[in-house]
């Protein structure tokens, strides 16, 4: 049992820290973290950041060195997420590309696909999104209905995707479509690499409860793909999608470290706000609540590391990831809800009228997505119950 980083890991950390200090947008580290609110400005801002990351060699650190990555170890990937969370770095626009599509193509893509896509994923030239969820296929993803039909040498795709992050800024989509109806829903699905800029693809932004437009509906009306755009084999898409997910090794680390940062900011908030002329942090009840959050955030961090130790020892990620996801999403919600309570009667003021910083209101509202996206809490609990505790499976069709 050892709760510390090795020397080479600390060196990696320092190198990244130095790079971030030199390359984050001006004023970022001093708390001046303004991302343009309008869609166009936000898109440009995120593309710029993606380019910087790529140029600095910090876009796809787990990629093999011969493809422009750093061949980072799992722990180094975790340190990366830790540092990014520490400075609240801007979101990585091409995260779907660098964390999942690229590694999947390197793993099971054709030579042609590797040649055509991989380099552009890493240098940020092409941004990727992920076409999975549909209006009637959310938690029950395998019941997706978007169809791809072969006509001549082309595949014609029709249907609708939803909750596609950054689709409006993306060049390509990793998309699941039904190519055959065998009656078994996990069969007959194929994974396509679809070009977004074509007449058959239309995206419409979804306005979220926090007044942001990060998610989209994607309408496919006779969208076109080639045989060369298929990943793996026809009708083998479900398995390919699982391969894709297995490459997202540290997504949960991102959440876990974000929580550590969020906790520190919650303490700062309690130090800043006053009631009857006294900082809230002196209130014993506030201290009790903060102490509970402190213990829980630490617990989640160490649980994450314990599960990571397990993955490293067994060589593969286990269902413990579902526990980390469950716990971190729910704690994130709790802490942001508490931040709202701390702000008293002015807690609903936002945008330019916010009491402290409108990001509290925005993040609080955003947090309702935590327990829905990437598998709802209910689905995660089923996974944990069935795969870790061995409880009976739900009745399903």
């Amino acid at each position, binding site marked *: *049992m*050892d*709760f*510390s*980083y*090795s020397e080479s*890991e600390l060196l990696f950390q320092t190198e990244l820290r130095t790079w971030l200090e030199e390359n984050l947008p001006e004023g970022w580290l001093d708390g001046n973290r303004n991302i343009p609110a309008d869609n166009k400005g936000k898109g440009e801002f995120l593309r710029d950041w993606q380019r910087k990351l790529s140029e600095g060699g910090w876009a796809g650190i787990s990629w093999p060195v011969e493809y422009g990555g750093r061949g980072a170890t799992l*722990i180094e990937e975790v340190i990366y997420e830790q540092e990014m969370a520490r400075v609240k770095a801007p979101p990585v626009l091409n995260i779907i590309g660098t964390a999942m599509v690229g590694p999947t193509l390197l793993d099971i893509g054709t030579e042609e696909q590797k040649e055509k896509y991989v380099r552009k994923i890493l240098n940020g030239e092409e941004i990727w999104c992920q076409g999975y969820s549909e209006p009637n296929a959310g938690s029950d993803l395998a019941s997706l209905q978007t169809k791809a039909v072969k006509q001549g040498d082309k595949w014609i795709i029709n249907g609708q995707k939803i909750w596609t992050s950054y689709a409006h800024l993306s060049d390509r989509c990793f998309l699941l479509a039904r190519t055959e109806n065998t009656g078994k829903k996990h069969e007959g699905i194929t994974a396509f690499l679809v070009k977004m800029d074509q007449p058959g693809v239309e995206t419409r932004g979804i306005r979220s409860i926090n007044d942001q437009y990060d998610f989209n509906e994607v309408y496919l009306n006779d969208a076109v793909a080639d045989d060369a755009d298929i990943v793996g084999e026809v009708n083998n898409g479900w398995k390919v999608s699982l391969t894709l997910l297995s490459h997202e090794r540290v997504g949960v680390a991102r959440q876990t470290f974000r929580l550590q940062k969020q906790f520190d900011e919650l*303490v700062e908030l*309690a*130090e800043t706000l006053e009631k009857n002329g006294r*900082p809230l*942090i*002196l209130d*014993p009840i506030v*201290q*009790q609540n*903060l*102490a*509970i959050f*402190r*213990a*829980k955030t*630490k*617990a*989640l*961090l*160490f*649980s994450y*590391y*314990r599960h*990571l*130790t*397990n993955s490293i*020892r067994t060589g593969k990620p286990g269902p413990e990831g579902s*526990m980390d996801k*469950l*716990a971190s999403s729910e704690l994130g919600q709790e802490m942001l809800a508490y931040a709202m309570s701390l702000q008293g009667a002015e807690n609903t003021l936002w945008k330019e009228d916010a009491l402290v910083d409108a990001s509290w209101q925005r993040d609080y509202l955003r947090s309702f997505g935590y327990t829905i996206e990437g598998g709802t809490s*209910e689905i995660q*609990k*089923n996974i*944990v*119950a069935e795969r*870790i*505790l*061995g*409880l*009976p*499976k*739900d*009745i399903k069709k």
Partner: protein
Amino acid sequence: MDFAFNEEQTMFQQTTRQYLQSKGDLAIPRNYMEGKQEILTQLWGGLAELGFMGINVPEQYGGIGLGHLSILPILEEMGRAVIPGPYPETVAFAIPLLNEFGTEEQKKRYLPDVASGKTKFTLAIIDDRKNQLKADLQGDNYVLNGAKILVAHAEFADLMIVAVRTGASNQDVSLLIVDHQLHAECQPVKSIDETRTLFTVSFSDFLVPKENLLGQESAGDQILKAGLNELTAAWSATMVGGMDRVVDMSAQYVKTREQFGQPVGRFQAVKHKVVDMLLALENARSLSYYASWTVENKAGDTFEAVSMAKSYNSEAFIRTANANIQNHGGMGFTWEFDCHLFLKRARSLENYLGSPQEHRENIAKESGWNKEKVLQYNK
């Protein structure tokens, strides 16, 4: 970085589990509750034979010379079977305090006997409000008058470490190694947790030789703080074992208990509750490992880490033990089923060595959320 048990810890864990199972597992606390106290003597002898009484006793005094992290898996296993007896008090309080503050003479006198299983320790730190324990130095002896309450296993322990007032000021606290079996009056008090017997121990002109003073006179508060910190980490680890067991019990029961033609564990209302128990266990285990790691490595944040473990684990143990009763339906409410053993143990540990609220006050203090920091911040 490595956050899991190493080979040695795994070995200690497996050996303890096998040994406790061979002795009857939950039949151990059951027998003890029914008054068959000899089970404890047998158990202690067996533990000593396995070398488990001397894990953190230095080699020159007959032990193995390892640290707190090596005891951790044994403590967890003991919690899993609600084992009675002052094991934590002996190995995670008396031994470390003797190691750190004992005189050479005291180490020679006590440590080999602890390692061989001959001597068991408990501690007496809570004063009887109406009869505070005082010690007056007269010649070569301290003369003790007064009483301590809630002393665990006074009947079974051979010696106890007692906090006494040796002066007029509140700071004048000293620690004495006391052979209470001589002629102190040990009055049992009834508790819903019959696996941890509690006593009021009264002293009347009771003589303790001066050489039994542990550490400096009037340095008791500081020594206690260090000792209690390690003991608190140890009891927090036993709670992890208890929680591990109730999660297991619930998972097993809801898999086999059928209603409406299917295992009740298929219903999400039940299934998800067991998952919530597991999540609480995961948190508790993580905080316990970290607390033990800081204790062994004398890390700067030891006090905070231990307070996080104790405050969280105490409440989580009660919560999961409650849920375990509910998951067992009517059977969980019977004396015959084992669910109540865990609930009662959880309650008897809740405020032992500090309540969750007090430990959270420690976290606040250690985190610097106090006045001075804030005043500084406002400047």
